[in-house]
């Protein structure tokens, strides 16, 4: 831990020295995005070593490292740097979804589809009603609700509760990967968070359309169609990317990991103008590889493993760096209240309504832990509320983002504990080479030479 902390300080010192060369607003040699990537990668990996001793998950360490070096604390990363790295986020989301798809063998999951569906619905319903009630109450305490009728407050609570139900497939998959967890519970967690997030995105488009009408904003009748087109388009692109990847892996088979990353980069670049979601594209492609192609999804997981770690580390550090601490502190008590309500709703829903799914009690106790972490999609929906609904949108978005911060920080820690309790941690042994560090000192290695 001490060595990790010393190395972390050295990395920060180098970056601090370099950053002192230019004034913050100067850009004579670009924005310094390369510096930001190196700094985020090394700082987050070293933070992982430091927090390992504290039994905290690496994902939390990456997020904390991002907060530390981000604009609000040490200021080593500037907003311009973060903006330039948005493509990294898209690549990471695509990769995470691809790996999730490669993990999901639908044939194996088919007997459990009813269980997955009912557990998802029960968690979502519990979380939604708890959040709705909390948001409705908070609207009387915070300025954004001033002058609103009860119906209007209800609509605000409806839209926001819908957005705040979102889970975080990247965090869940990241922690399961870190814990090398494999088994029915792990598959259940991945299936639920992935499928439920798709449902949340769809339902959000509907609730926000209704809210537009009720709250007197500009109604956009084509909005729902737009969202459907976006989802269908993403699925179609994923259905094209999957066979391309399968063909490459099957016929050429060289530098597979690099090819996958190159494809994800192209998808990330195309995502904005084509309204294609890298998450859905990656997921569809992954599902195709694992379930329909002659190529095993696990081959993709193995081939991309070397590149996955740096991608995940930078992605989660970016999420941390984008947290605005000052905004969070302003709404911290209410954000905490919403986070607790959400957690209570999720647990209550799954424990009470989940009985109909046929899942045993232990499963029902563990499932909600995977629903606690929040990140990308929740942030995207909160940002959509901020930009769409005036004048209350920006004020509510601050509250929602504060709640996401709480879930970002606490969710992974709690979920990692649940993974340990599930008994599936350490059951994945399909990458034996990755267990070794060939350049480690001799005494640290089991074998004397390689």
């Amino acid at each position, binding site marked *: 831990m001490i060595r990790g902390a010393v190395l972390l300080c050295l990395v920060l010192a180098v970056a601090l020295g370099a950053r002192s*060369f230019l004034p913050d607003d100067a850009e004579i040699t670009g924005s310094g995005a390369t510096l930001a990537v190196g700094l985020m990668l090394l700082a987050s990996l070293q933070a992982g070593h430091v927090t390992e001793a504290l039994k905290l998950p690496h994902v939390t360490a990456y997020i904390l490292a991002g907060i530390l070096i981000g604009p609000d604390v040490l200021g080593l990363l500037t907003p311009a740097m973060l903006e330039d790295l948005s493509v990294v986020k898209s690549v990471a989301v695509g990769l995470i979804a691809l790996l999730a798809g490669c993990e999901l063998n639908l044939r194996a999951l088919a007997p459990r589809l009813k269980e997955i569906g009912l557990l998802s619905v029960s968690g979502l319903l519990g979380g939604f009603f708890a959040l709705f009630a909390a948001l409705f109450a908070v609207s009387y305490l915070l300025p954004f609700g001033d002058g609103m009728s009860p119906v209007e407050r209800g609509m605000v609570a409806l839209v926001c509760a819908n957005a705040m139900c979102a889970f975080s497939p990247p965090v869940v998959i990241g922690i399961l990967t870190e814990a090398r967890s494999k088994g029915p519970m792990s598959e259940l967690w991945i299936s639920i968070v992935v499928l439920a997030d798709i449902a949340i995105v769809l339902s959000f488009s509907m609730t926000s359309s209704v809210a537009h009408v009720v709250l007197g904003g500009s109604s956009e009748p084509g909005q729902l169609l737009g969202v459907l087109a976006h989802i269908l388009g993403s699925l179609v692109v994923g259905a094209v990317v999957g066979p391309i990847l399968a063909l490459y892996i099957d016929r050429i088979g060289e530098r597979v990991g690099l090819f996958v990353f190159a494809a994800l980069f192209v998808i990330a670049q195309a995502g904005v103008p084509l309204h294609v979601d890298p998450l859905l594209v990656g997921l569809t492609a992954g599902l195709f590889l694992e379930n329909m192609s002659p190529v095993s999804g696990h081959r993709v997981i193995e081939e991309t493993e070397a590149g996955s770690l740096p991608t995940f580390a930078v992605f989660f550090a970016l999420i941390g760096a984008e947290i605005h601490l000052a905004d969070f502190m302003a709404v911290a008590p209410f954000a905490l209240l919403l986070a607790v309500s959400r957690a209570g709703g999720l647990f209550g829903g799954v424990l009470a309504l989940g009985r109909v799914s046929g899942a045993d009690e232990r499963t029902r106790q563990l499932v909600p832990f995977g629903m606690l972490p929040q990140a990308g999609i929740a942030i995207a929906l909160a940002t959509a509320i901020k930009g769409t609904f005036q004048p209350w949108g920006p004020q509510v978005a601050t509250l929602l983002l504060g709640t996401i911060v709480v879930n970002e920080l606490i969710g992974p820690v709690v979920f990692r504990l649940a993974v340990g309790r599930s008994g599936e941690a350490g059951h994945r042994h399909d990458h034996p080479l990755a267990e070794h*560090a060939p350049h480690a000192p001799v005494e640290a290695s089991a074998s004397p030479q390689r």
Partner: protein
Amino acid sequence: MASVDFVGLTLALTGAVALAFVATNARVRALEERLGLSVIASSGMPFLLLGALLAWGPVGLMNEGVLADLRPAFEFGLGWIGFLIGMRLDVRRLDEMPASFSGVVATTSVLPMAFTAIVCLPVLLWLGAAPNDGLIRNVAILSACAAASAPVLGAAASASRRMLKEVTGFDELVAICVLGAVTLLYRPDQALTLWSLPPSVWLLLMLGLGALLGILGYALIRAAHTEAEEFAKLVGVVALASGVAGYMALSVPVLCAIAGATLINLPMRDREGLLETLDSITRPLYLVFLVVVGATWNGLAWQGWVLAFAYAVARMAGTWLGCAWASRLDPVSLPVPRDLVAALAPQSPFAVVVIVAATTGWVGERAVASQWTVTAVVIGAVLLDIMVRPLRQRGTSSPDSPAVAV
């Protein structure tokens, strides 16, 4: 950026990536050799031309905005290649070299540099380059490019082959040194920055920073728990070194080469494995890098083609003389002069990295002549390959024939 730009960029990147992967396929490379296309392919010409096509007015897919978006990846690519070059400098291997080694390196790298400077300076003046507009800088960079010979590939089966491999590796380091010196002498306006230091202090700073990053990389990699973490840290160290260099207007490949050289010379097991890790993604990275270079390349200026011819002839003459001299210094360890020329005359792909690093790192208004130098090095590589082809066909020790290693 407009939507159409994004779509265009997507198509462009798809094309570049597809081409890069096709070109790195073993069967395609074997076909290139069989059809005699390796001369053009080894210079990366198809990728440069693709970049130029994508940036061409009516197509206009890789415009200024897109290139600015790609700058971080471009900087990282420069750093990765520089790091690899530095990591080839394992001083322990020098102990195995004959005493004549330093003399051979000096003659085979300094003479082509000197000839290039002597020929290209008056040619540039004749072409209309202004003496007070970066003339010396351009000549120095062209000389640096002339120093780098294409690495000799394959196993070091014989003593002469081993010697050639080391010589070509050191030639690239000479080029790195000249590039570093140029970057230190031509710093950005100090009024724009918060530091005001003389070039000598910048030199110390660059050496110290490079060494520090190498030591830091070593400590980080040693502390890695898994191979995946090791790779992640390697990427992180290269990105940090590239970013620090770019941010401080130092030469990215030079700083990364110093860091790489420091790292490889610290006590570490499985150095070859680490080099292989770097090498495994260098070629696709280099080929995509060439597409970006092609997009900024103005190959239509006739002055560039004239300079390319002068550059190729000067480099060939310098190499010939250097090889003849080197063969006298060590007639035992080296092949006969003609084979030595055939091995060392082809220009290293790293020369393109040098010229691009120098021109993109240019702070302030860039001299028109700097565009001509890019053409000179790019086209010069093809001309040199063509010039050396008859020598290779008549050569006696074909196993020593070089090939692209980047």
